[in-house]
């Protein structure tokens, strides 16, 4: 890997993405064993530094670390103790003094993993920062598509929903484009980020046009409570215009697959039956997430810079 930390897909070369996906292929098999553990990262310490609440992603990283025999520590500074009193960089410096080997960071604000990485000696894995990136999600999505379709190059991937606030969307736009797919987005106009076409995607407000000939449909979670009324009128109207159901899938290719980063608002982003059954591959995504994160931890752990942390360099 050319960079010490995995902060975003934007920084990765296509070859690096493929290397991670290939490494994940080997990890899948470990999950099928009775004893789901290999000694690869024995003696290494992985810290899950989650400033923002998360159950699924944190569990996935924790299981991945444990299957590689690493010691996994969950560190979740409560937002109240952190508010105003301790800066994120103070937290990072404190953590650095405990000599972790990898730090997995999630924060509700974009850029925090990058700034934490700037002061840490250990590599940082971004587990989601604001509306910026969620690289391991995009990697597991690519892995799942490759598993289902046998390739990514030449496919058409349509991402539907709240692109504006979505780190999953940004990481997937980069990842699928770097691997040769065409990426389209479809959203209510207020949820299309300004100048998003500069990221190389085609933006649609009509779901029908966006789905025309699509190989993959990825629905994003709508934060119903917070956004209804401001960015779209209501869950009912959203569901009618942008919700994916079997009828709307008729616009896409016959062998289209449906993805969702979870958790699904059933009946809003996806119709009830689609959430559980083919062509949806949502549980495959979750399952692959563990293998993919094992691959990431394996490739990035053990790259701790002992002698030249930026902190010491600056002083």
């Amino acid at each position: 890997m050319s960079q010490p930390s995995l902060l975003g897909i934007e920084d990765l070369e296509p070859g690096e993405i493929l290397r991670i996906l290939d490494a994940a292929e080997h990890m899948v098999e470990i999950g099928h064993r009775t004893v789901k553990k290999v000694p690869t990262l024995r003696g290494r310490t992985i810290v899950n530094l989650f400033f923002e609440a998360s159950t699924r992603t944190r569990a996935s990283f924790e299981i991945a670390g444990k299957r590689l025999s690493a010691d996994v520590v969950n560190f979740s500074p409560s937002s109240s103790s952190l508010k105003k009193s301790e800066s994120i960089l103070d937290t990072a410096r404190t953590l650095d003094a405990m000599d972790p080997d990898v730090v997995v960071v999630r924060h509700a604000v974009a850029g925090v993993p990058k700034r934490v990485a700037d002061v840490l000696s250990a590599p940082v894995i971004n587990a989601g920062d604001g509306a910026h990136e969620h690289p391991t999600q995009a990697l597991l999505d690519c892995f799942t598509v490759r598993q289902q379709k046998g390739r990514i190059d030449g496919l058409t991937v349509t991402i539907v929903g709240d692109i504006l606030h979505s780190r999953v969307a940004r990481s997937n736009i980069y990842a699928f484009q770097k691997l040769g797919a065409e990426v389209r987005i479809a959203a209510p106009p207020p949820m299309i980020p300004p100048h998003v076409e500069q990221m190389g995607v085609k933006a649609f407000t009509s779901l029908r046009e966006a789905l025309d000939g699509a190989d993959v449909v990825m629905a994003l979670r709508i934060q119903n409570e917070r956004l209804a009324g401001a960015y779209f009128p209501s869950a009912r109207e959203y569901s009618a215009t942008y919700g994916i159901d079997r009828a709307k899938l008729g616009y896409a290719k016959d062998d289209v697959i449906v993805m969702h980063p979870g958790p699904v608002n059933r009946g809003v982003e996806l119709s009830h039956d689609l959430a559980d059954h083919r062509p949806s591959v949502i549980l495959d995504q979750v399952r692959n997430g563990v293998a993919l994160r094992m691959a990431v931890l394996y490739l990035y752990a053990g790259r701790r810079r002992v002698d030249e942390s930026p902190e010491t360099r600056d002083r």
Partner: protein
Amino acid sequence: MSRILVRGGRVLDPSTDRDEVMDVLLESGRIASLGRDLRVDDAQVVDAAGCWVMPGFIDLHSHLREPGQEYKEDIATGGRAAVAGGFTAVACMANTQPVNDDPATTDFIIDRARQDSPARVYPVAAATKGLEGQVMTEMAALVDAGAVAFSDDGRTIMDSGVMRHVLEYSRLVDAPVITHAEDRTLVAQGVMNEGAVSTRLGLPGNPSIAEDVLVARDLMLAEFTEAHLHVAHVSTRGAVDLIRRARDRGVHVTAEVAPHHLTLTDEAVTGYDTHAKVAPPLRSEADRDACRAGLVDGTLDAIATDHAPHAQHEKELDFVEAPPGMIGFETAAAVTLELVRSGELTPLEWVRRLSTNPARILGRPGGSLGEGRPADVTLLDPERIWVYDPAKGCSKSRNSPWAGKQLTGRIVATLVEGRRVYDVERGPLT
């Protein structure tokens, strides 16, 4: 009183359109005379060869943080930073703790400045009590105490009815109303310019239309009330266009632009450096170019720093929580000299925007090297190359996007009322 002879510098005085090498004699706190090869006995000589000799810069916009937030800055350190940047007078905004919305607070600032600050300090009082945008402050009493203008800087007055009456009432005291023009409902959660860069970085965007809409409203209110509106830190192409057209219609509007909006763009936020977080935010290249053009054609009258000190631990918060603002006194001259080197502004026109025009806007003395005027004088070596290190600067805070950068052009000496208050080799002299 001692006499000082500033010898052999290039005198740049926009008030008389003078641009020639000559000597300046200062006596009893005033400009006594100008001429070639002045012969004066018993005068202290300042060798200004190779330097520009200018009326002291006047900053229309700064935050000195005293009273209430002395851990960021106080009137003494802010005043020293000002003279180190060539500013002989600075206007300070009202968002102190307590807010400067009461003559007692204005008195305090003026008293403290008289004791502690080498630069003159002109308090800007709040336009509404507590900067809450509801109840007008006692403008007449505040002006009697020494307030020079009124502003709820940082907190736009969103109620158009309140803004109308503030503007109307300001005619009584003949002081400008300074608007920080950002429609808060359009800013929403925005922390950087809304555009391709915010989309890429995933940070909430603050659209340029938030400024345009409020500038348009305030220009219409100024036209309607016939009051003097001053638009603070213009950052958008739309705002420059609106001000230009209003000026053409005869609206009494003046405007300022900050060094960072003239030279940086939202690309500076890449890497999530909170030192690039400022309100209004760093904008697109098109906006920056429009601000430069507006400054050149006179639509924007003045360069004002919006010097806004914040402590290091505050700037180490995440990009949303970190407070907006950057310090600017000590870098303003070097940073904006870029417009002189590029040929956009002549040296004389550059000085006009840092000194003569701000003096006119505030109705204060200064901005001139005419005989009999106050001896507020700034000397600059336009070629001197230096590396800016805020830790070695005079401000208590270090939040500057130019930290560690090599700059060209440095203030070498500053005099206020005929007294030397700053020297580049020795630092602040008070």
